[in-house]
């Protein structure tokens, strides 16, 4: 791009005071990118189920790690356990955050929700909602079926 550096650019990220709408905007990208990587897990699950018992056992052992089942042993065990829980909880949160901020995009696509206070409220609500839904999801997985 041939840009004359002596001419000013329009104000960009560094000039604005951070607000929830900016956080939600960048989270939409970050969570979307993370979920794109996690799509490999979906493929692995289906391929493992189609391949056989052994392939499926390998997959479930990794998913067991991501859902924090099993008792960790030793320092390395606890670190691995913590990483697994962070990824497992993080992926579910990423899904709900991306879904809720995507719904917010749908509303804004029709031209609604740009009033400052409304915009701020719904930006905050996507964050509150994604945290609540993540907690509910894991509560159901871990305790809901009485397992």
């Amino acid at each position, binding site marked *: 791009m041939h840009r004359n550096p002596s001419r000013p650019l329009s104000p960009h990220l560094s000039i604005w005071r951070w607000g929830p709408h900016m956080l939600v905007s960048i989270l939409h990208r970050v969570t979307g990118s993370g979920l794109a990587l996690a799509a490999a897990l979906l493929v692995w699950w289906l391929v493992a*189920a189609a391949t056989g018992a052994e392939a499926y056992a390998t997959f*479930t052992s990794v998913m067991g790690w991501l859902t924090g089942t099993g008792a960790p042993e030793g320092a390395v065990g606890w670190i691995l356990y913590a990483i697994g829980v962070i990824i497992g909880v993080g992926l579910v949160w990423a899904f709900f955050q991306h879904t809720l901020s*995507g719904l917010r995009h749908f509303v804004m696509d029709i031209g609604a929700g740009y009033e400052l206070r409304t915009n701020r409220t719904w930006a905050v609500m996507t964050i509150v909602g994604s945290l609540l839904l993540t907690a509910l999801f894991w509560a159901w997985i871990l305790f809901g079926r009485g397992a």
Partner: protein
Amino acid sequence: MSAKMETALKQVRGLGSAREGARHWWHERVSALASLILSGWFIVSLLRLPAYDRGTIVEWLGSPLAAVPMALLVITTFWHLKMGVIVVIEDYVHEEGSKLFWVTLVNFLAILGAGLALFALFKIAVTGSAA
């Protein structure tokens, strides 16, 4: 290239748009809506399954009412993620050569991923729990 005595705006004025923006934007929305409906179905179905062992999963995915939405979920998800990741690449990779490389790589990987998942679903559907 020698520096041009023109602003960036002057250089693009009159060239029109790339003519793909609106379609890309619309496909993002359509694939998002489809993925929203199908992933809702997927999560509810997962939470309702009695267990997650291979036998249960294969039996569940052997049913047309599970296999077809799952195949559609794979298609819409990979379609959507391909478009989304490409937008991110286009925003942050400025050098044309590496941009082309990463966009092509994402296209290939997305089609590979969707292809693997769809074939796996097909195999489960035709061989069932006998596999």
